[in-house]
């Protein structure tokens, strides 16, 4: 009964989306539009929560529940299991789409009616595309007759709190970009005789998308770091790239929007970026879910899905980009910037972000291109990305440190230099201090640390000055980026890895820490059994630092092993132990990592997120005043 209702509700939302598309084309009749928008929101809410209900009560007459759940699974993962699989995640995607659709509708007033209606029309088209996709190729309410007594279980590697909230955040990001896309298409297709400040409408959505994408990507990294047990937090996997590329374009879009807002320049550019950012999100979805690439993320694959997403991408891509090609000329301006100004610095940063994005895109699809044209297989990995992305990022971050302090238009160079002088000194001092601690020298290490403190001190100084000229959310977000760079540099340049075979009571040394393998315990979790190694960690003065307990878990229902890394964190470093295979006679394979400054990556991401959240609020207020 409940699954049928859910299915019915899903079809109902398809109807509402179609009616929104038709009604908003015809304009005017507000009553019908509000019925469609609200109906769409409510029906997708219902279908989403009915699927969640089926998961929570373990209704194994639903194929999706049968394939991804089990009665012994903890409640949190029964809930997150709804979007931990392809079909259910589509339902979440639709829900977020309809939520944003509703937010756009709430902006409707007499002055902007034509503009908002056009936007709603485009949004309705996108929503129809996603609902149709779900209904035709991935219906989560498909039944399983006869119902089974129990389910197949949920991939244990996905049973992790960080991964439970990672997809919703990511989808808010992608869908926020869809709003920017719709606003861009609406702007291009209308004559905008009312002179509606479309960029003011676009900005809160872009800020929201960017903020949540940042948080979503960070949580994905946290999951990889804690759960995969490979000692790292970023692997340049196609799926990671699929979220990183829209983020890069989102970053460029966000900053260019400020230029449009203040100087009315770069309008054509921003309209294009808004289109590309969303198209890239959809292409990313295609890459990940069509099975065209292999990746550590295993979505259930089905070629018909790939064809469908690609056709949908083609439709919206061809439409929006031809529209851009034919209509964007009127938004073009011939304003030239001086390099040494705020808009100049933003423009340069923009270009660098685009270059990084193109580089990552090339790396991701290059194996596919090579295969299509030469029929041979190659793979592109970390060395490519490290040697291309890092050099482009360095100037971008250098500019980021000083850009916000410059004025619009033209800047007095000596005045700026005076302003940043204390910061240069502080940066040198701190860099010196850091290298006294870590005593490991490399060019990348130097560059990274200098850049990190450069950003951190510039923003701290701005914060102290309390100059009204600077937006507080910008300072906070930039400060977060500085902390992030600190963490990234420390953990990638100074990481130490040790893989050894250890027997009980044996000891080993990493950095200044002595690690003693004390014993192996057998423990029992809610839906797994585990071997737990007990390791004592002593520092160089023989004081005990901590006890680490890495686990080797076995999930009998899924017949799957996972490793739980055990990590001791402080503000200087992480100690990270993974228990591998072995037995008491031959010893156990133990992997030990010394990862400096990792915690600053997470703190940095959190600070960026906070900055973003305050900025959404500010931009929404601005928009309210305008309309």
């Amino acid at each position, binding site marked *: 009964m409940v699954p049928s209702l859910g299915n019915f509700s899903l079809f109902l939302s398809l109807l509402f989306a179609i009616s929104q598309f038709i009604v908003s084309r015809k304009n005017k009749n507000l009553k019908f539009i509000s019925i469609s928008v609200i109906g769409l929101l409510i029906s997708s809410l219902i279908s989403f929560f009915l699927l969640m209900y089926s998961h929570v009560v373990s209704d194994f007459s639903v194929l999706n529940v049968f394939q991804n759940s089990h009665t012994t699974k903890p409640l949190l993962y029964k809930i997150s299991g709804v979007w931990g699989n392809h079909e259910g995640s589509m339902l979440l995607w639709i829900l977020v789409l309809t939520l944003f659709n509703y937010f756009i509708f709430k902006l409707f007033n007499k002055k902007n009616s034509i503009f908002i209606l056009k936007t709603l029309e485009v949004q309705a088209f996108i929503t129809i595309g996603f609902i149709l996709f779900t209904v035709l190729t991935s219906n989560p309410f498909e039944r399983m007759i006869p119902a089974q007594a129990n389910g197949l279980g949920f991939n244990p590697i996905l049973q992790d709190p960080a991964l439970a909230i990672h997809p919703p955040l990511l989808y808010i990001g992608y869908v926020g970009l869809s709003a920017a896309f719709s606003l861009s298409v609406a702007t291009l297709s209308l004559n905008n005789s009312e002179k509606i400040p479309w960029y003011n409408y676009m900005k809160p959505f872009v800020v929201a998308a960017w903020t949540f994408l940042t948080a979503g990507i960070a949580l994905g990294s946290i999951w990889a770091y804690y759960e995969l047990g490979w000692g790292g937090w970023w692997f340049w996997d196609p799926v990671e790239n699929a979220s990183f590329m829209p983020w890069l374009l989102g970053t460029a879009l966000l900053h260019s929007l400020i230029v449009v807002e203040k100087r009315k320049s770069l309008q054509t550019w921003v309209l294009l970026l808004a289109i590309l950012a969303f198209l890239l999100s959809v292409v990313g979805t295609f890459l990940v879910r069509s099975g*065209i690439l292999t990746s550590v993320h295993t979505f259930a694959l089905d070629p018909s899905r790939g064809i469908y997403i690609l056709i949908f991408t083609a439709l919206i891509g061809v439409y929006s980009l031809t529209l851009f090609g034919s209509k964007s000329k009127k938004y073009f301006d011939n304003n030239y910037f001086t390099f040494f100004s705020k808009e100049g610095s933003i423009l340069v940063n923009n270009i660098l972000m685009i270059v990084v994005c193109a580089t990552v895109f090339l790396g991701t699809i290059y194996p596919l291109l090579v295969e299509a044209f030469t029929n*041979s*297989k190659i793979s592109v990995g970390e060395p490519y990305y490290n040697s291309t992305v890092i050099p482009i990022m360095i100037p971008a971050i250098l500019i980021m440190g000083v850009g916000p302090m410059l004025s619009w238009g033209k800047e007095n160079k000596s005045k700026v230099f005076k302003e940043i002088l204390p910061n240069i000194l502080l940066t040198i001092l701190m860099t010196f201090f850091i290298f006294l601690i870590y005593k490991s020298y490399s060019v990348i290490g130097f560059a990274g640390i200098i850049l990190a403190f450069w950003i951190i001190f510039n923003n701290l100084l701005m914060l102290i000055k309390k100059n009204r000229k600077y937006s507080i959310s910008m300072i906070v977000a930039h400060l977060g980026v500085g902390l992030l760079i600190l963490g990234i540099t420390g953990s990638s340049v100074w990481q130490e890895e040790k893989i050894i075979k250890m027997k009980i009571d044996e000891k080993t040394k990493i950095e200044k820490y002595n690690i003693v393998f004390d014993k192996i315990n057998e423990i029992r979790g809610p839906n797994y059994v585990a071997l737990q190694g007990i390791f004592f960690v002593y520092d160089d003065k023989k004081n005990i630092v901590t006890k680490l307990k890495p686990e080797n878990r076995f999930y009998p229902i899924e*017949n*799957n092993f996972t490793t739980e890394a055990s990590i001791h964190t402080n503000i200087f470093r992480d100690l990270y132990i993974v228990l591998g295979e072995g037995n008491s006679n031959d010893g156990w394979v133990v992997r030990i990592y010394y990862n400096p400054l990792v915690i600053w990556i997470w703190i940095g991401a959190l600070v960026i997120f906070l900055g973003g959240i305050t900025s959404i609020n500010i931009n929404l207020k601005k928009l309210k005043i305008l309309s």
Partner: protein
Amino acid sequence: MKKQLLIIPFIIFLFILLTFFYLLAIERNPSELPSNLLDKKIPKFETESLLKNERFISAKEFGKEKILVNFFATWCQPCRTEHTYIKRFSKEKGIRIIGINYKDNPKKAVEWLRKLGNPYSDVPVDKNGRIAIDWGVYGIPETFVINSNGIIKYRHIGPVTKKIYKKINLLISDIE
């Protein structure tokens, strides 16, 4: 600015799109990697046999007839799913299959084969994964087709599915 420049994004987009369509249209398996060992002699190995009381010496076994080599383990879920197809190879095609038991518990493996049926003519034991490394295996299950001269003709990574079953079947009849 020239108006023509504004359609560049469209052209790039179209190019990428067509590539994707092409890749979806052609028969391809993204998890299929060409093996360095393709068309080369099998790597030699010598190890215990799970079911027999004598050592398994590869030089004695290969090079007389077509053989299928299948890396498997009881802890590997996909191995269980592909097992029906492995059994069909032995039953329907009558081909000799050597199952290399990868990093497994021997007791469990014997029990597993007793329960699910044993299509293997011999089960050499790869206790610490050394043989798998020589064969370039990086994730089980993997299946190799060896011709009667002991040369590797085909390698499949991942479980044998219906489609792969048919493909390997054709291959077995084709190679000599």
